[in-house]
């Protein structure tokens, strides 16, 4: 029993290396803060560090979007549909509405 549990746990942590892309927003918006702080250019009069952080928001959205597409390609949606179907009973609303009256 314990060993099957262990195996399933490992399977659920299946390796998806592209998810490490999610580190990129941290590189842009955190690690590079000191590097860009003294840039004096001001695109559209906006102070550079501010423009950098705004660009960082766009980068984060784009990166998350790419990871989403890679997840779709890896078949996450199908696996998830199975999960939703298999957990209908524990999801809550139905289970409790039944024993209410």
């Amino acid at each position: 029993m314990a060993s099957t549990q262990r195996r399933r746990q490992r399977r659920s942590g299946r390796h998806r290396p592209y998810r490490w892309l999610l580190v990129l927003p941290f590189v842009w918006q955190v690690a590079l803060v000191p590097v860009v702080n003294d840039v004096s250019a001001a695109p559209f009069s906006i102070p550079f560090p501010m423009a950098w952080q705004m660009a960082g928001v766009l980068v984060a959205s784009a990166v998350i979007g790419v990871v989403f597409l890679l997840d779709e390609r890896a078949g996450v949606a199908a696996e998830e549909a199975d999960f939703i179907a298999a957990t209908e009973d524990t999801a809550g609303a139905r289970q409790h509405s039944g024993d209410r009256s």
Partner: protein
Amino acid sequence: MTLLIAIVIVLGTSLGAIGFGRRSRSSSATMSNWAVGGRRFGAVLFWFMNAGEIYTTFAVLGISGYAWALGAPAYLAFTSVSLSYAIGYWLMPKIWRAGRKHGLITQADFFTARFDAPWLGAVTALVGIAALIVYVQIQLVSLSLIVRLTIGSAISPDAAVVVGALLMLAFVFLAGLRSAAFAAGVKDILMIVVMVLLTATVAGKVGASSFLDIFHLAEQQHPGIGSFPGIDPKSPTTSVWLMTSALNVALGNWVFPHLFQVSYSAASGSSIRRNAIWQPLYSLAYFFIILLGFAALVAGTKPEGGNLNAALLQFVSDKYPGWVIGLVAGTGFLLALAPGSVLLLTSGSLFARNVVGLAGRDLSDRSTLWICRLSMTVFAAVAVWLTIGQSKSLVDILLYAYSAIGMLAPGVFLSFLWRRTSAAGVLLGIAAGFVALLAPFAKDFWAAQLPAWEPGLIAMGINAVVAVLVSLCTPAPGARATAVGLDLTAPTAGPVTEAVRSAPHAGEASPA
């Protein structure tokens, strides 16, 4: 005029929200229905639920105030949402799966199930409630400022805090989670309208040639305002401050009990992940808020008592006609009331379910509901007591709240990552973290050695190290309990045994 418009906005939205909340509640009135929306929130409601919790009065008054008083440190706003969702993309679906698979309602339910330890659920519930109360303070400080903007300075600041708390409780007693999502939707649309309206007209109000010219004028009047540490070259808000604060916010964000519960409320993991792509873009709206803070500075706005939280409101009431002030005030009320009600609801359900529920037998619907309401009132009173007589900036209060909730972050992350994490490890980690955060000797040490570092992040690190070390020397929970965090695949055969006792019915949050 001002008062009339504000009242129309608040009452109209409240009625709409209550109607919206009622409509769908016909089928089953259960705890899971009002606390996690029956786990049926699709893309639109889930979006507004998320946005509602991010764009609060903190966003508008706190960030504009920071821009007015300090300058560059307001950029923290741009990091908070995008980084939170970069983590949330990975974490929130896990929380959602655990919640769905095991019928979890609160965050403390998760700890109870993952460590097979209801006592740890109660401890984490209390930590969560403490952080939520600090968060409620933000809404109260803002509400009191807006009350004074609409009624005038005839009412004292302390009385305005009490009025704000009463308004919030009234809203909470009438609204459930769906109602809050509705009110959040209305306030988000109003906020965009207000921001566009103010930005379009602001240049003329401060004598700039265009709204972008305001940045230029601000830099001219206060050289260095646009980069760290901001206006005051001796301020501790350096690049390091931004880096550590941004990390602390991103790591702590989903650990807030109400945001943990938001993950439960999703209808599917895809709606969570899709939302994570678009939600950060919304945070670009902070551009307008920071711009208005700079505009207030350029215009020489002097809020009463130099209170930075009031900078934007003071600027608007100095420069704009009554109907704009009314629109801003009405929007401001909603910005505080909608998230505030979710915060109080969450703390009430945590207390009734995971603290009182630990001691008592199964409670009836009626008594759970009453415990919920009574405890929410007490928590609101505590928040009032904390608020009265202090004038900290909203950003500082927010960072306190994140420091407190950050104490649960190592427990949450380790739960999903490491099978060996033990209940004792989580508990002692929390204890060590709080000592590092609150003990005077520790505070002084950080202030002297690492003045620019966000203390919450340091405490979170110590917490994590202690949690790992203690977990190595203590036995891990049983296989069924660790599976709550680590086996998130579909159950294969046979009925799933619920790891938590089945949910007590809390009934409706509304009096009907």
